[in-house]
C-alpha cells in the first residue's frame, strides 16, 4: 500500500479569463475560477453547456482560444504528468489484460503497483482477465485504478458514472470519495446528475451558456447521509437554477439533448 500513500498533495487551479471557441461558436466565455488544492469540485450544466469542453481544456486535449490555465503559479501544461482524466466510457484497451491496462504507459517494475491500484478499487482478483469479461462498473473501476497509479495531483472526471446503474453509481461515488480523502488530490467532476454533484462535492459549479452561472459551496460534513433534507434542499436549489432559464434556451437547445438531460437527472 505504501506507494499509494506517498502521494503529493493536490494542485491548486486558477482559470483566468478562459475562453474557447470552435469556429464561430463560443463554447466557453471568460471563465474565472479558483480552486484550492485538494478541493472536490463538481461541474454541472445542461448538455452542450461547455462543461466537457472545460475538462478537455484542463486535460490538455484541446487548447484554449484565450485566457490562462494555471496550476498555482505555473502554467497547467507544465504539470501534465500530474493530471489524469477519466472518460465517460472506460476506454480500456480490449487487447490488454486488466493489469496491463492499469500499467499503461508505465515502465520499469510497475506490476506490484498495478496490483496495489487494482486492490484499492477492489478488483485485485480480476487482474488477469480481458476487459470484455468485466461489467460496466468494473471497467470504470479499472479506469480509476489506471488513473490512480500515476499518483495524480489533479483528477479530472468526465461523467465517468453516467452509464452506470443507480446502485453501482453510488458505490463508485463512495469509492472515489474515499480515495480522494486518502490521497488529497484535487478533483473536478463533470456530471449532469445534480444529486451526485451535491452528494460528493465540496463545491458545485453550474455552467450555463459558457459562463459560470452558480458557484455553490456544499459545506456538509462527511460521510454524508444521502437521504438528508439538507442535501435535498441544496439539490433543489441547483436544479431550480438549472431549469430557470429553460424558456430562453428552448429555442436553441435541440429537443433530443434536452430530453436526455432531463431523463438522466431525474
Amino acid at each position, binding site marked *: 500500500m505504501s506507494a499509494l500513500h506517498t502521494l503529493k498533495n493536490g494542485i491548486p487551479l486558477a482559470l483566468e479569463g478562459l475562453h474557447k471557441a470552435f469556429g464561430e461558436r463560443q463554447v466557453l466565455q471568460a471563465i474565472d475560477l479558483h480552486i484550492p488544492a485538494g478541493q472536490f469540485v463538481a461541474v454541472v450544466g445542461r448538455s452542450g453547456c461547455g462543461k466537457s469542453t472545460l475538462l478537455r481544456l484542463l*486535460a*490538455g*486535449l484541446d487548447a484554449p482560444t484565450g485566457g490562462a490555465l494555471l496550476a498555482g503559479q505555473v502554467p497547467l501544461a507544465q504539470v501534465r*504528468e500530474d493530471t*489524469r*482524466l477519466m*472518460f465517460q*466510457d472506460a*476506454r480500456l*484497451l*480490449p*487487447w*490488454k*489484460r486488466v493489469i496491463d491496462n492499469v500499467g*499503461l*504507459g508505465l515502465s520499469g517494475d510497475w506490476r506490484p503497483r498495478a496490483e496495489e491500484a487494482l486492490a484499492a478499487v477492489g478488483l485485485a482478483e480480476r487482474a488477469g482477465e*480481458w*476487459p*470484455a469479461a468485466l461489467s460496466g462498473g468494473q471497467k470504470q473501476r479499472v479506469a480509476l485504478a*489506471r488513473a490512480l497509479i*500515476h499518483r495524480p495531483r489533479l483528477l479530472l472526471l468526465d461523467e465517468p458514472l453516467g452509464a452506470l446503474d443507480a446502485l453501482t453509481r453510488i458505490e463508485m461515488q463512495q469509492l472515489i470519495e474515499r480515495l480522494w480523502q486518502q490521497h488529497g488530490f484535487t478533483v473536478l467532476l463533470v456530471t449532469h446528475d445534480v444529486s451526485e454533484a451535491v452528494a460528493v462535492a465540496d463545491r458545485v459549479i453550474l455552467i450555463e451558456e459558457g459562463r459560470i452561472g452558480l458557484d455553490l459551496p456544499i459545506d456538509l460534513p462527511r460521510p454524508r447521509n444521502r437521504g438528508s433534507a439538507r442535501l435535498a434542499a441544496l439539490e433543489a436549489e441547483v436544479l431550480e437554477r438549472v431549469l430557470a432559464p429553460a424558456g430562453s434556451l428552448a429555442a436553441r437547445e435541440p429537443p433530443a439533448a434536452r430530453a436526455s438531460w432531463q431523463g438522466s437527472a431525474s
Partner: protein
Amino acid sequence: MSTTHINRLAERLSPWALPLALLGLWQGAVASGLLSTRILPAPSAVLEAGWNLLASGDLWQHLAISGWRASIGFAIGGGLGLLLGFVTGLSKWGERLLDSSVQMVRNVPHLALIPLVILWFGIDEAAKIFLVALGTLFPIYLNTYHGIRNVDAGLVEMARSYGLSGFALFRQVILPGALPSILVGVRFALGFMWLTLIVAETISASSGIGYLAMNAREFLQTDVVVLAILLYAVLGKLADVAARTLERLWLRWHPAYQAKAGAR
C-alpha cells in the same frame, strides 16, 4: 450413457454421409462403365495415382515448389501491402500521395497482366512470384489501411493522455486495434494466392501442381488432373486453417474469437 454416445457419434459423422454416398455413387458409375474414365476417373484411380506419385517422390517435389512460390509471393506481396497500409493509414500525406494511385492499380485484374509479365520475366520463377505478390498485395493493403483508420479514436486519445506516443502508441494501440481487419485481409490474400498460382502454373511452368495437371492433360491422365485439383483444395484449406489459428492466437481478447465462442 451408451445411447447418448451413439447419438453424439452419429451427429459427428452425419455431415460426412452425403460426400461419402456421392463418392460411392461415383465409384459405382465408373465401375459399371456408365461414366467414361476419359471424363472422370474412379476415386480409386485418383487415390492410386496419388499413391504412385507419392512413392516416386514426384508429388513432394511438385508440392514443395508450389508451396515455395506461394509463400515467397505471399511474403513479398503481403509485406508490401502491410507496409503501404501502414503508411497511408498513419500519415495524412501518405494517404494523399499514395492511396488513390494504389486504388487505381488495384482495379486492374492482376491476371490480365500475365502476357506482360511473361514478356518481362519469361516463364521463370520470378513471373509466378510476381503475380502471386500482386494478387496478395491489395487485399492486405486495403484491410490494413481501413483497420488503422477505424481504430477507436477515443482509445488513441486516451493513450496519448497517458503519455504514449510514436512507436509505443503504434505497437500498443493502433496495431492491435487494426489487427482484426488485417487478418481478414490475410484470409482474402491467401485465397488470391492459390488462385493466382493455379493460373500462373497452368499457363507456364515446368514444375509445380499446375504443371502436373497440364502435363497429365496432354497424356489424357484424368486421374492425375483430378488429383491436382484435390491437392489445390487441400492446400487452400490448410491456408485457411493457418489464418484461423492466427486469429485464435492474436485475437484472444476479442469475444468473437474466443475458443469458448465455439461453433466456428
